[in-house]
């Protein structure tokens, strides 16, 4: 099994290095095909590992080599494939294989084709380290590694100012959270003496509650950054500047779910501190609603999907926070499939529309792009949670969890958000694929994407449809390591009312969206309508003014304080003091230079003055030595 483990882990790295070899040379197909093939290999290895685990073999645990060791600190490169990590591995390798193949077509005309695959495979490698590592330090390697790759890929089109800005924003925001994570790791180390999951979690129950709380808080801060939870969420929408396959892989399916993975992985810790769990769940519910509300009005196709991702991450955190770790993980998996599918479909549309992102400039594309239309519709249905697609099983489960755990406020919020989700998803579908063909105004002739791209997407389509049926197998598997709590609504009547009610509510939202946005005379927002001038709309379209506030109250002051520090503090105070001291000596020299007038008799006078000074010193010191005891007595009398 170790062989498969290493194959699964390192083949993306090999692929990345291989593509990097062609980094500076012009586009070669091989630089895309080989990494994709290697990822396929990685996927196969992961599948073998999954089968092995499903068939009852225990977790595979290897220790490759020592990384750091000093004093009592010992951190190895250790990898573990257990029920949790194998799930993540499957998701990561599957989605990334699909995305790689898809990207061969998508990036076809791009100059940086080779570079792109190098980065993308490097990302998969980092992600694999993240999920497979058996200790917090290894997790952190992957954590930062995916951050780096995310930076590289968001800023892939580095000539675009907005792209590089978004890349830096993403990296720095993640860094803020990483600090929290680092502190969390330090706390774990100094309290349990190790960073290995197993030993650390084993030692935790004996620790004090305060310590555990702080640990949980700091680790969760790390998770908040990667999973773009409020208030560190702004980078995710801006990250849509990257190529669409990147958005699909990194900013929907894998990297952003790392935070959820962390919480799930650290479930023994969070299990001990239910209060933090409640906090996580509340924040998750808040983000779910908050992000969905922003998605309602946005006019950027990719941003809408990004907000929907954010919203779904909120769902996952609700589940994780309420202790339903397996549910969180399950939703993570299902979400990865349909969200990646949605993004890839959006990529097809973008290609067809020459990188146009505004759905109001599209419409009626279902004729030109049938395949994409079907895929995106199914993905949206899955996202909305309509039976029997994947979203129904995972998302409704979260609602049930909230209900069963008696968190009715969270439940209500989530339910409402489910409606919003259905609305904005189908708003998008309706605007893009139905209604008038508004794109003709811009003289665009849309065309369907390459066939192999659609074929590459089909596994995702398949999974988005049937993922729900794995629920029980999956449950049996992961609950070997995760707490096995099933959530059943007590009375079956309530259950049916809830389920059907939810379904109806969601269906109503979908119909409403269709009705509103498939009209022939749909009004393109131009800032004149009453709704657009309402406060709520402005608030939402400006993302609650949070990016503006960050820019105005964080970035700007930081820049100003920095230059103030430089020009005023560093130069005018610190350095000026140093120069001032030097200057004083210089001035003293200048002034006393007159003493050396060259006039012998004046110099003789100075000489005598010097003699007098020295003699008086001699007298003073002599006297003080002679009368030392008396002086001490006198001084002590004065109270010195």
């Amino acid at each position, binding site marked *: 099994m170790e062989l498969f483990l290493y194959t699964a882990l390192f083949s993306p790295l090999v692929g990345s290095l291989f593509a990097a070899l062609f*980094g*500076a040379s012009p586009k070669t197909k091989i630089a895309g095909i080989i990494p994709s093939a290697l990822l396929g290999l990685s996927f196969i290895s992961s599948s073998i590992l999954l089968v092995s685990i499903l068939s009852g073999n225990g977790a595979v645990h290897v220790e490759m*080599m*020592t*990384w*750091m*060791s*000093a*004093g*009592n*600190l010992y951190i190895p490169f250790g990898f573990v494939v257990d029920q949790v990590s194998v799930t993540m591995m499957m998701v990561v390798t599957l989605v990334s294989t699909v995305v790689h193949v898809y990207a061969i077509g998508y990036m076809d005309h791009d100059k940086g084709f080779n570079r792109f695959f190098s980065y993308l495979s490097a990302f998969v490698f980092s992600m694999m380290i993240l999920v497979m590592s058996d200790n917090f*330090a290894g997790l952190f*390697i992957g*954590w*930062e*590694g995916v951050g*780096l790759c995310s*930076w590289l890929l968001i*800023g892939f089109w*580095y*000539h675009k*100012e907005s792209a*590089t*800005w978004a890349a*830096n924003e993403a*990296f*720095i925001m993640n*860094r*803020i959270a*990483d*600090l929290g994570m*680092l*502190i969390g*790791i*330090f*706390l774990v*180390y*100094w*309290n*349990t*003496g190790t960073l290995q999951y197993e030993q650390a979690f084993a030692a935790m129950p004996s*620790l*004090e509650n*305060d*310590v555990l709380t*702080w640990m949980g808080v700091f680790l969760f801060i790390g998770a908040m950054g990667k999973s773009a939870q409020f208030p560190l969420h702004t980078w995710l929408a801006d990250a849509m500047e990257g190529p669409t396959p990147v958005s699909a892989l990194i900013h929907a399916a894998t990297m952003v779910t790392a935070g959820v993975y962390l919480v799930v992985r650290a479930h023994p810790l969070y299990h001990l501190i239910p209060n933090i769990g409640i906090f996580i769940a509340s924040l998750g519910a808040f983000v779910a609603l908050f992000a969905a509300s922003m998605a309602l009005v946005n006019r950027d196709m990719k941003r809408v999907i990004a907000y929907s991702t954010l919203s779904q991450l909120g769902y996952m955190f609700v589940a994780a926070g309420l202790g339903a770790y397996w549910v969180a993980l399950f939703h993570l998996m299902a979400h990865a499939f349909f969200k990646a599918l949605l993004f890839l479909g959006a990529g097809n549309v973008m290609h067809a529309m020459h990188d146009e992102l505004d759905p109001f400039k599209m419409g009626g594309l279902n004729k030109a792009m049938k395949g994409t239309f079907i895929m995106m519709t199914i993905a949206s249905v899955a996202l909305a949670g309509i039976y029997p697609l994947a979203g129904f099983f995972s998302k409704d489960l979260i609602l049930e969890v909230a209900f069963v755990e008696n968190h009715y406020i969270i439940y209500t919020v989530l339910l409402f958000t489910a409606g919003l989700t259905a609305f904005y998803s189908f708003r998008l579908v309706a605007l893009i694929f139905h209604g008038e063909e508004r794109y003709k105004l811009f003289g665009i002739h849309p065309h369907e994407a390459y066939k192999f791209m659609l074929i590459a997407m089909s596994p995702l389509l398949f999974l988005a449809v049937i993922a729900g049926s794995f629920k029980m197998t999956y449950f049996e598997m992961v609950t070997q390591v995760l707490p096995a709590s099933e959530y059943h609504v007590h009375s079956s009547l309530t259950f049916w009312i809830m389920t059907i009610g939810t379904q109806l509510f969601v269906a109503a939202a979908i119909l409403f969206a269709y009705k509103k946005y498939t009209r022939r005379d749909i009004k393109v927002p131009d800032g004149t309508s009453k709704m657009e001038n309402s406060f709520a709309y402005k608030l939402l379209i400006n993302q609650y003014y949070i990016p503006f506030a960050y820019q105005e109250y964080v970035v700007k002051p*930081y*820049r100003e*304080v*920095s230059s103030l*520090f*430089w*020009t005023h*503090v*560093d130069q005018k105070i*610190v*350095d000026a*003091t*140093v120069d001032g001291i*030097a200057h004083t000596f210089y001035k003293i020299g200048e002034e006393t230079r007159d003493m050396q007038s060259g006039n012998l008799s004046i110099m003789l006078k100075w000489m005598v003055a010097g003699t007098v000074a020295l003699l008086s010193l001699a007298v003073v010191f002599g006297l003080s030595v002679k009368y030392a005891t008396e002086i001490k007595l006198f001084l002590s009398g004065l109270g010195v």
Partner: protein
Amino acid sequence: MVEHILSILIFFPALAAVLGFVVHKDSVRSYGVAVATIEFMLSMWLWLVFDPTLSGMQFVEQIALVPTFGINYIVGVDGISLFIVILAAFFTMLGIASLGETKNIKNMIITLLFLQMTMVGVFLALDAIVFYVFWELSLVPMLYLIGAWGGPLRIYASVKFFLYTFTGSLVMLVGMLFMAYLYHRTTGNWSFSILEWYRLQLPFEYQIWLFLAFFVGFAIKVPMFPFHTWLPYAHGQAPTIGSVILAAILLKMGTYAFIRFSLPLFPDASVYFMYPIAVLAIIMIIYTAMVAYAQKDIKQVVAYSSVSHMGVIVLGTFALNVEGITGSIFLMIAHGVVSGALFLLVGVIYDRRHTKLMSEFGGLASVMPRYATIFGIMMMASVGLPLTINFVGEFMSLLGFYKQSHILTLLAGVAIIVGAIYMLTAYKKMFFGVVTKDENRNLPDVNKTELLALIPLAIVTVWLGVYPKVLLEPISTSVKPLVEFMHEKAITAEAKARISTMAVKVDNTKIPTGEAH
């Protein structure tokens, strides 16, 4: 020969420098490379014969210089100094090998070789006077390098560098003399041997004053806030090779001296001053990072980033536990490699455009992709990405200090944020965007000579980031007894508690939210 390897390491470059005067001008470059390579090979040989399982000094040589006052020429190497010596040899070699067209190249190479002697001497000296002599001697070649090959403000910069550091050193010298006097008063013998000083258990008040005297000398060299202002000038005006050596090796003298002198000689004072120094270090980290963000000159950015990282090293040193000190020593190496490489990279672009202003660039990623890649790797290392060399040191330093104070470590950890901010911004300004200036359109990418220096550095950066064990093991072997020794030697109860080699805190009481006293 192997028993005299340290003396050979010290004096071989100096001898070669003297002989360099008779070498013909055209062949002096290859002569310099040859000498530096031999020196580097010697240092690698030293690593080979060095026994990593021993914690004490190895290859000790002792020759009496002034027996009346106990001044001896004593040199020795342990895990703490070994790698800095290798780093010094490595960088001198790379520096000479990558020298571009320079006026008066013969003098420069001779100066560099002489500088190498002083650097190696500082790290190997085990006698305070010998240490002091090398310490001061190192100023002279650097003064010459900045003053003779520097930019327009070179005279001001070099004089400032010299006088500032020299002033600090004099205070340190007073401390050393007083230390020797105390030793004489206690034992009746004169001695300047550091190892013999170690055995002296000083009263607390003496420790405080001596610590401060030494601190002034070391802190200016590091340079710690607020003694740092000479550094941006020195870096800004120095030629590339000068900046590289200054950042990679010379600054390490200060932090190395903290570990060699301050900690074992004055354990109680070290604990007493731990918080003030940590606060200074944190100011250093955050403040200089912000100043770096405000810079317009890429070299100044790297210079200030250097100061910022030195803050983490100081913090790790004053963690006073094995993890922290090992981390800080490793970070010295890491910072040497990374900031040296960054200065070399800045030199590359300066050679082409004769400007260091970031506004003059933009979009270089498409013009010079290889350059952008190497710069990117080094930048990410500087930012402290895992699996690069810097991360290991930074992680361990902060981890170590976390044991002493939670809140201060949290503040110091801001380093990873502010570091990313200035570095990414600078990178974005230089490499991203479209090419706006016509001069930049046809810049040649890095050439072979430059790659010769940069590729090994990139390899080291990643290699030691993935497999730091080769360094960490000998370092921690030497650090562990040092910490134990400090624990034994400490006289106050607080110091005994603070300096400990135990992994897990004994009392898992409250995790304080405020100050961690």
